C-alpha cells in the first residue's frame, strides 16, 4: 500500500515538472492573445528554435552548466527578436479577424519548421542535461532524474517573477489594462503599439527559453513544435485567457492529467488531455480563472 502511495507521489512531482515547462509556452500564448487579440500559431516554432539552440550549443561545447546558461541567453535573445518580428507581421492583420492571423502564423510555422529540418535533419536530436544535474536522486524512495527537479525550481521561479511583474509593476498594470480594454488605454495616451510588441517579444522569449529548458527531456525533432503548440492552446483554454495565474493553473492541471491521470488510467491516456479540456469548457466556458469575457 505504501509502495503504491509513494510511486504516485513521484508521479505528482513529475506532473509539476511537466506543468511548469508547459507554463513557459502557455504564458506567451495567453498574453499575446489577451493583449493583442492575436492567435499566434507560430508559438510552437519558437519553442523548437530554443530546443535546437540547445542542440547546437551542446554539440559545439561540453555540456556544462555555463554553456547551458549560454544556450538560455541565446534563446531569450533570438526568441525576443523573433517575437518582435512576428508582432510587426501580424499588425496589418489586426483588423482582419482570427482566421487571417492564424493563416499567417501557421504559414510562418511551416516555413520555420522546414528551415529547421533542413538545418538539423529529420532525425531526433538529443541534449544531455548540464553536468552537475545529469544524474539521478532518490525522491520518495524512487529514482528520479535530478534535472527534472531543476526544471521545477526554474519554472516556479519564472512563474513567481511573471506574477510579480504583471501584478506589482506599472508595466504589468498597463498590460492588464490592455487585456481588459485596449481602446481605453490608448485614449489615456499610452503607446499600445510598443506595449504589444514588448509583450509579443517577452512571450516569444519565454517559449524559446522553455525550448532550451525542455530539450534534455523532450529532445528536438520535426513535429515537436505542433505537439507543444497544441498542449499550450489546451492549457490556455483550461486556465483562462490573458492572465499569469490562469496559464499557471492550466499548465499544472494538464501536467497532472498527463502524468497522474495517465498513471491511474493508462488505457485512456490518449483521451485524458482533451477530456479534461472538454470538462472545463462545459463547467467553466471561460476557463478555470477566466473572467467570463469570451472572445
Amino acid at each position: 500500500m505504501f509502495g503504491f502511495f509513494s510511486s504516485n507521489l513521484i508521479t505528482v512531482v513529475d506532473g509539476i515538472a511537466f506543468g511548469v515547462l508547459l507554463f513557459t509556452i502557455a504564458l506567451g500564448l495567453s498574453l499575446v492573445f489577451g493583449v493583442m487579440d492575436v492567435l499566434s500559431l507560430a508559438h510552437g516554432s519558437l519553442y523548437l528554435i530554443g530546443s535546437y539552440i540547445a542542440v547546437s550549443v551542446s554539440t559545439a561545447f561540453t555540456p556544462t552548466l555555463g554553456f547551458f546558461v549560454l544556450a538560455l541567453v541565446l534563446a531569450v535573445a533570438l526568441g525576443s527578436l523573433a517575437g518582435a518580428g512576428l508582432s510587426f507581421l501580424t499588425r496589418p492583420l489586426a483588423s482582419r479577424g482570427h482566421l487571417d492571423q492564424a493563416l499567417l502564423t501557421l504559414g510562418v510555422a511551416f516555413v520555420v519548421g522546414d528551415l529547421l529540418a533542413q538545418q538539423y535533419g529529420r532525425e531526433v536530436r538529443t541534449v544531455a542535461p548540464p553536468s552537475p544535474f545529469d544524474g539521478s536522486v532518490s525522491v520518495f524512495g524512487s529514482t528520479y532524474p535530478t534535472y527534472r527537479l531543476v526544471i521545477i525550481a526554474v519554472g516556479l521561479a519564472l512563474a513567481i517573477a511573471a506574477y510579480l511583474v504583471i501584478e506589482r509593476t506599472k508595466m504589468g498594470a498597463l498590460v492588464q489594462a490592455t487585456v481588459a480594454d485596449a481602446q481605453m488605454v490608448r485614449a489615456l495616451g499610452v503607446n499600445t503599439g510598443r506595449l504589444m510588441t514588448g509583450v509579443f517579444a517577452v512571450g516569444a522569449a519565454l517559449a524559446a527559453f522553455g525550448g532550451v529548458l525542455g530539450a534534455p527531456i523532450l529532445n528536438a525533432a520535426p513535429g515537436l513544435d505542433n505537439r507543444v503548440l497544441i498542449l499550450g492552446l489546451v492549457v490556455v483554454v483550461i486556465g483562462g485567457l490573458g492572465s499569469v495565474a490562469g496559464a499557471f493553473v492550466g499548465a499544472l492541471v494538464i501536467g497532472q492529467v498527463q502524468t497522474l491521470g495517465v498513471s491511474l488510467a493508462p488505457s485512456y491516456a490518449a483521451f485524458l488531455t482533451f477530456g479534461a479540456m472538454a470538462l472545463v469548457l462545459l463547467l467553466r466556458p471561460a476557463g478555470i480563472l477566466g473572467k467570463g469575457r469570451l472572445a
Partner: protein
Amino acid sequence: MDIGLLVPQSGVYAPIGEDMEQGFRLCLDQAEGQLGGRDVNVVVADEGESPDTGVPAAQGLLEDGVSAVVGVVSSAVALGVQDAFTEAQVPLVVANAGANAITGPDVSDFVWRSSHRIEDVSGSIGAYVAEQVGEGSVFVIAPDYAAGREHAAAFRKTFEGAGGTVAGEVFTPFGQTENFQPFLSQIEQSGASAVYAFFGGSEAVSFARQYNSFGLSQNLPLFAAGFVTEGGELEALGQDAEGIQNVLHYSPQLDTPENQKFVEAYTAAYEEPPTVYSVQAYDACQSLDQALEVGTSGPEIVEGLEGIDTIPSPAGEWSYTDTHQASYTYYLREVQMQDGQPVNAIIRPLTEQ
C-alpha cells in the same frame, strides 16, 4: 524502363526513406544502372506519413506507367495500395512495411516483400527472453497503433508459448507520448523482472533515455524489437542504448565477407554505415535484377520473382516463401560501445532460415 521508388521524403519517416533510397541506388549503381540487363530509370515518389499522401503517390506512379514499384514504409499505405497494384498488374516489392497481413495466406500475385514481417521480428525473441527471465516475469510496452499491437502480440505468443509469464502490458498513445514517467512507474509497480519494448523514431529515443534516467535499467534488463536501436535512433541514443538486447535481421557488424564488402561500398558512397532499411531496399533491387531477366510486363516480372532461388543479401542468403515473404535469419543483437560509437553487436542467430 521505369521503376518506381515509393519512399517517404517528408514527415517523420523521411530518415527511413533516405536509407532505403541509398540502398536501392547503391545496388543499381553496382549493376551499372541495369536490372536484368535492361537500362532502368528510377522515378521517385514521396510516400509521406500516411495513406493520405502515400496512396495518391502510388497511383501517380501507376499512371506514369512504371514497370514495378519498390518501397513503402507505412503498413497502412501498403495495405491501402495493394489492390490497385493487383488491378494494374504491376508488381509491388514492399521494402519496409511490416504488417503481418501484407504477406498473409491471401497474398496477391503482384505483392512481394523483401523486408521483415512483424511476427518474425518480435516472435523470434520470445523464447530467448523466457529462458533469460526464468521464474521472473516480463512487462510489455508498445505504442498504441497497428504495428505496436502486432509486435506485442507476436512477442507474447512465443514468450508465453515457451512458458514465460507476462506481468503486464500497456499501449502508449501513438505519436503523442514524450514523457514515459507514468508508464515507467507502472512497470516498477508491476513487479516485473524485465521489459520488452517496441518503439520507433523520437518515441524510441525518449523511452530508452528515460528508462535509464529513472533508474529502471539498473534492475530490469530491457529487451526490444531492433527498431528501437537502429539508424538515427541508435545515433541519438549514444551511450544510453548500451546493453539493450534486441532482435532484427541485420547489423553492419555481421561478420561475413559479403557484408563487409557491402558495408565498405555503402560507407564509401554515403559516409554513414548502412541500416536494416538500406539492406531491405538493396535486396528489393536484387530481386528485381533477377526477375527482370524474364521480361518487363507485370506477369513476366511476377514469373521472374516466382523463379528466384536465393537472394545473396548482405544479411545472409534468403529466399521468398510461398506467400512472397523474405525469409531472413533473425539475430539477437546487443548494443555495445565501439570507439565511443554505439553499435549493434551480433550475439547469435535466433532463427534458422
